[in-house]
C-alpha cells in the first residue's frame, strides 16, 4: 500500500512516530506549523485511517486563598502550637493572635492531632502543649502544591487532599479536556522513503468518464455491412417510402393478400406515386398476377405509397433497372411493420438483404454463402429448414444455435426468386436472395432481451455497453 502524503501529513507523522499522544498545540510547536494547518493535516490522516485522535480529561488542583496563606504562614493549628510552645495560654490570648475562623479550626485540629490539652481554670480555659508537634500529611501536601498547578495523578496522599478540600478556600479544582493525536497501526507502517520516491496512490478510486461513441446497434449494422463487402457484395440504396408496385406487386404478392392490408403495412395517407415503373414493367407484372392469381390487377393499388416492409423492393427495382447477369448486391436499412410495439416487435427496424445473380447460382451456393456470412459474424452452428416466402422458390430459413440461450433460434430467410417475379422484369438468371432483421442479431450479441432497448437512447446504457462483444 503506497500512500500519497501531503507535506503537513508527513511532518505530523514524523513527530508522532517518536512522540505519540501529542496535542494539536504540541504538534504545532514542534513542527512549527500553524494550529490550522495541523488541524487540517490531522483530519486528512484520520480519513485515511493513518491517525487516531483520543480525547482525555485532565484534573488538577492549586491552592486557594486560605491554602496559600497556610502555605506561606503555616496552618492555624501550627500557629497555635507555636503560641503554646513555651507556656500554656488562655483562650483570649490565643484568639487575639489567631484571627477569625482560624481560631476554631486551630483548636479543633490541634486537639485532633493530640498536640494540646485544654483545662478549665478559674481564669477560663487554658491550652497547653501536650506532645511535640511533627509535620502533618496536610502540611506536606501544602508545601508540595505550593503556588503551582498540580495534576491529580501527582498527589499520592489522597486522604490529605480530601482534608484540605474540606477546608474553605484551601483547594481549587481544575478540569481540562485535551485532544491528543497518535498514529494508527496503518500509520505506524508508513514508509517515508517509498512515499518520497514520487509514487502516487495508484489504487485510489477516480471519477468515471465516458467516451463519445457510435450507437451499439450501429456497430452491429456496420459489422454486418463490412461482412457483406468482404464477401464481395456491393451496397445499393433506396427510399424508405415506396409505391406498392415495388414493395408488393413486383414481388408477386397479390393485391388481396393479407400482408397488404392496412393492419400489417403502413400506407401513407393520401399519397400515390405518379411515375413508378415503365409501361412494359407494369404490363408484364400485371399479366403475371392475372395468370398466377386469377384476378383483375388494379394499377391504382400499385400506386399507393407505403413504408417499405422489406428491403427486397430496393433489390428488385435495382435488378429490373440494371438487369445484371452476374452480380453480388446487398441493401441494408430501415423497414416498417404496422405492429403493436412489444419486447420483441418494433414498428421500424433494420433489415439486410443480399442477392447473388449468376447463371450457375445454386441453392447449395446460397446455403454456403449463408454459412460463410454467419461464420464471419461469429455464429458457427447453423442449419437450414424449409419454409415459405411468397416470392422465392425454393425457400429456406436459417437456424442458428445460440450458446447463451441454449437453443436454436431462427435467423435469416432465403430462397431463389420465383420465375413469376423475375421473368416479367426481364431478369433471366437465377437470383439467390436472403435477408432478415438486424436487431435480432444485435439482441443475441448484447444479451438484450427487449428490442426497444436499442431505440430508448438510455445514456447509462449508451455510455457503458461494451464496444467489443
Amino acid at each position, binding site marked *: 500500500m503506497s500512500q500519497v502524503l501531503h507535506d503537513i501529513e508527513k511532518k505530523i507523522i514524523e513527530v508522532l512516530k517518536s512522540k505519540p499522544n501529542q496535542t494539536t498545540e504540541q504538534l504545532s510547536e514542534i513542527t512549527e506549523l500553524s494550529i490550522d494547518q495541523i488541524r487540517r493535516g490531522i483530519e486528512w490522516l484520520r480519513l485515511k485511517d493513518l491517525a487516531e485522535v483520543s480525547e482525555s480529561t485532565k484534573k488538577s488542583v492549586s491552592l486557594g486563598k486560605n491554602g496559600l496563606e497556610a502555605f506561606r504562614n503555616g496552618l492555624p493549628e501550627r500557629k497555635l502550637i507555636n503560641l503554646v510552645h513555651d507556656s500554656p495560654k488562655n483562650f483570649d490570648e490565643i484568639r487575639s493572635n489567631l484571627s477569625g475562623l482560624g481560631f476554631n479550626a486551630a483548636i479543633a485540629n490541634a486537639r485532633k492531632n493530640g498536640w494540646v490539652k485544654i483545662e478549665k481554670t478559674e481564669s477560663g480555659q487554658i491550652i497547653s502543649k501536650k506532645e511535640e508537634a511533627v509535620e502533618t500529611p496536610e502540611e506536606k501536601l501544602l508545601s508540595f502544591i505550593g503556588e503551582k498547578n498540580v495534576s491529580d495523578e501527582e498527589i499520592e496522599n489522597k486522604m490529605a487532599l480530601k482534608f484540605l478540600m474540606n477546608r474553605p478556600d484551601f483547594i481549587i479544582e481544575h478540569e481540562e479536556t485535551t485532544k491528543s493525536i497518535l498514529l494508527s497501526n496503518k500509520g505506524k507502517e508508513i514508509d517515508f522513503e517509498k512515499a518520497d520516491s514520487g509514487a502516487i496512490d495508484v489504487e485510489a478510486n477516480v471519477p468515471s468518464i465516458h467516451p463519445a461513441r457510435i450507437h451499439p446497434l450501429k456497430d452491429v449494422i456496420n459489422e454486418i455491412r463490412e461482412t457483406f463487402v468482404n464477401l464481395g457484395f456491393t*451496397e445499393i440504396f433506396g427510399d424508405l417510402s415506396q409505391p406498392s408496385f415495388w414493395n408488393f406487386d413486383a414481388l408477386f404478392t397479390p393485391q388481396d393478400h393479407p400482408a397488404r392490408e392496412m393492419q400489417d403495412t403502413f400506407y401513407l395517407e393520401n399519397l400515390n406515386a405518379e411515375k413508378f415503373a415503365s409501361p412494359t414493367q407494369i404490363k408484364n407484372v400485371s399479366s403475371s398476377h392475372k395468370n398466377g392469381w386469377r384476378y383483375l390487377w388494379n394499377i391504382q393499388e400499385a400506386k399507393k405509397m407505403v413504408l417499405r416492409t422489406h428491403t427486397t423492393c430496393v433489390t428488385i427495382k435495382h435488378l429490373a433497372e440494371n438487369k445484371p447477369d452476374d452480380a453480388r448486391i446487398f441493401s441494408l436499412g430501415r423497414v416498417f411493420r404496422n405492429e403493436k410495439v412489444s419486447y420483441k416487435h418494433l414498428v421500424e427496424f433494420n433489415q439486410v438483404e443480399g442477392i447473388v445473380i449468376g447463371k450457375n447460382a445454386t441453392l*447449395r451456393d446460397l446455403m454456403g454463402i449463408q454459412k460463410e456470412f454467419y461464420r464471419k459474424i461469429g455464429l458457427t452452428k447453423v442449419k437450414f429448414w424449409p419454409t415459405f416466402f411468397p416470392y422465392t422458390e425454393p425457400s429456406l430459413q436459417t437456424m442458428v444455435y445460440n450458446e447463451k440461450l441454449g437453443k436454436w433460434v431462427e435467423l435469416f430467410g432465403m430462397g431463389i426468386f420465383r420465375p413469376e417475379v423475375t421473368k416479367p422484369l426481364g431478369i433471366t438468371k437465377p437470383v439467390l436472395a436472403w435477408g432478415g432483421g438486424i436487431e435480432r442479431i444485435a439482441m443475441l450479441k448484447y444479451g438484450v432481451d427487449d428490442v426497444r432497448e436499442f431505440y430508448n437512447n438510455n445514456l447509462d446504457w449508451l455510455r457503458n455497453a461494451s464496444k467489443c462483444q
Partner: protein
Amino acid sequence: MPVVELDLNRIQRLVGKKSNRKKILDVLPFLGLDIESQEGDSVRVEFSPNRPDYSTDFGIALGLQGLLGIKTGILKTNVKKKGNYQIKVDPSTSKIRPFVTGVIAKNGSIDDDSIKQLMNMQEDLHFGIGRKRKKSSIGLHDLDKISFPLKYTTIDREHKFTPLNSDTESTISEILQNTDVGQNYGDILGQSSKIPIILDTDGNTISFPPIINSALTTVTSETKNILVEVTGIDKQSAEDMLAVVTAVLENAGFEIYQLKISGSKNSTPTLASRSITIDSDLTNRILGLNLSPSSIILCLKKCRLDAKLKNKRIECSIPRYRFDIFGPMDLVEEVALGYGIDNLDPTLPVSQNIGSKHSITEKLDNSSMVMVGLGFIEALNSSLTSKQILYEMTNKNSSDIISVTGSKSQDHTILRDSIIPGLLENLSSNVHETYPQKLFESGIVFSRDSPIKESINLSCVNASKNANFSDMKAVLQSFLRTSFNLQCETKTTSDNTLFTSGRVANIVINNQNFGQIGEIDSSILENFRIRTNVTAFEITLSGLIFD
C-alpha cells in the same frame, strides 16, 4: 403463421406402425413445420399459409409418411359417382356470390378432436385462400339431415331459420346484426336486398353463406356422412378449398362421392390431378446436384406427388389440393424437400466480385466518426414518430404533416421532417444522468414533393449548464471542415420556433441554406422538462454531400 396442435399418439397411429416419435419430431421441421412448443404428447407446430393441408394431423401424417418413406406417391382422390346428390344454382346468385361447389363424404367417423381440427382448418382456409370468406367460404353438414336435390339461390333478408349454435329461429337481418360472424362478415354481402342461401328440397335452410350454417345440419361425433359445400366469387379458389377438405376427409377414412352441380356457369368439380413436366437439368442446376431422373422421381414421390419419365423429361402429377404448386420451380423445391434439406451440402462459390459500401454510407460513416471525435454520442430514433414530439412539443405548425393510416401505436403515426425533436426527447428521458450530454443522429427525414422527398440530415444537441451558441458554432464549423472540407456562415434569421430568437442562425454554405443552429428556446425545454441549456444544429446533407 397459423398454428396447429398435434397429439403425438394420434400422429404416430396415423403415420403407421413403422414410425417412432423421435423420428417424427426430427422430420417435422423438414416438412416446413416449425415446432413452436412441446408439452408431453402435445406439440404445437407452425405451418405455412400456402399449405392449408397441414392444418390437420391427417394432412401432416400424409407428409410424414412420405419423408419417412412409409408411404410415398400421390393420394389419388377417388370420386365415386354413385348416388344422386345434386345442387342446382339459381341465376340470381350470379350478382352476389356466383359459385358453389362441393362433395359428399360417406361412411367415416370423426371424434371430437377431429371436429375441433376440422373447424380450425375451416377458419384457416377462410382467412387464407378465402380472403376472410370474401373469395370463398366453406360449410360442413350432416348429410343424413338433408333431402336432395339442393338449391343454391338468393332470398329476402326477412327469411328465417335456426342458425348454428342456437335453438331459436332468427331472420337474416337479425343474424347479421346480432351474431359475431354476422357483424364480422356481413359487409361481404353489401347492401343487396337478397342474400345467398342453400335450401334443401323440403325447404329447410342448410347454409347462409358466407356467414353461418343452420343448426339442423350440425356435424357431431355421431355424424357418419358429410356434405361439404363451398361458395365464392372465384370458382377456382372455391375448388381449391374443396380439394383441401376432400383430401383431409379422405385421409381420415371417408369415401368420397360426387356432388353434381349445375346452372349459371357452375359445374361439377372433378378434383382431378394436373401434370407439370420438369427437366432433370433445371432441377440439378438450381439445386447444385447431379441427380438421375429416377432419383428425382423418388424425391417427388416422397413429397406425395407422382412422377414418371417421359421423353427424357419428368412428368409430374400433382393432386388437386396442392394448388401451391405453380410451375416447374415449385417442383424443384419438392425435389429438394424429398432429397432432404439436411442432405444438401452447402458450397461456397468463388466470386470475382469486389464488394463496396454505397458512397452515401461511406460518407455518413466517416462524418459520424467526426461527430464522435467532437465528443457526441450517437443516438438512434424511429423515423416514424408522434405528432406530439414532432410538432406539439416543439410548437411547430403541422400543416405539412405526412401520416400513415391505421397505426397500431400512438407513438408512431407520422414521418419525421426533422431529427432534433427526437434528440430533445432523448435528453428528456435522460435528465437523471450526468451532464454534459452530447448526442447526434444522422438519418432520413421526409417532406412533401411528388409525392414525397427523402433527405439525409445530421443533427446534434449539447445539453449542459454552459452550452452556448458560439461553442455549437465551433462544433458545426469543425464538423463541416473535418468531414467535407466545407466552410459555412451563420446568418441571422427570425424564421424559427425551436430556438431562442436572436440566438439562432441559418447555416449557409455557398450562399445556400442547409439548416439551422441555435440555442433551444426555454419554453420548448420546459415542454420536454429539460432543466439545463441546450444548443443544437441540424444540417441537410442531401444536396450538399450526396446527390
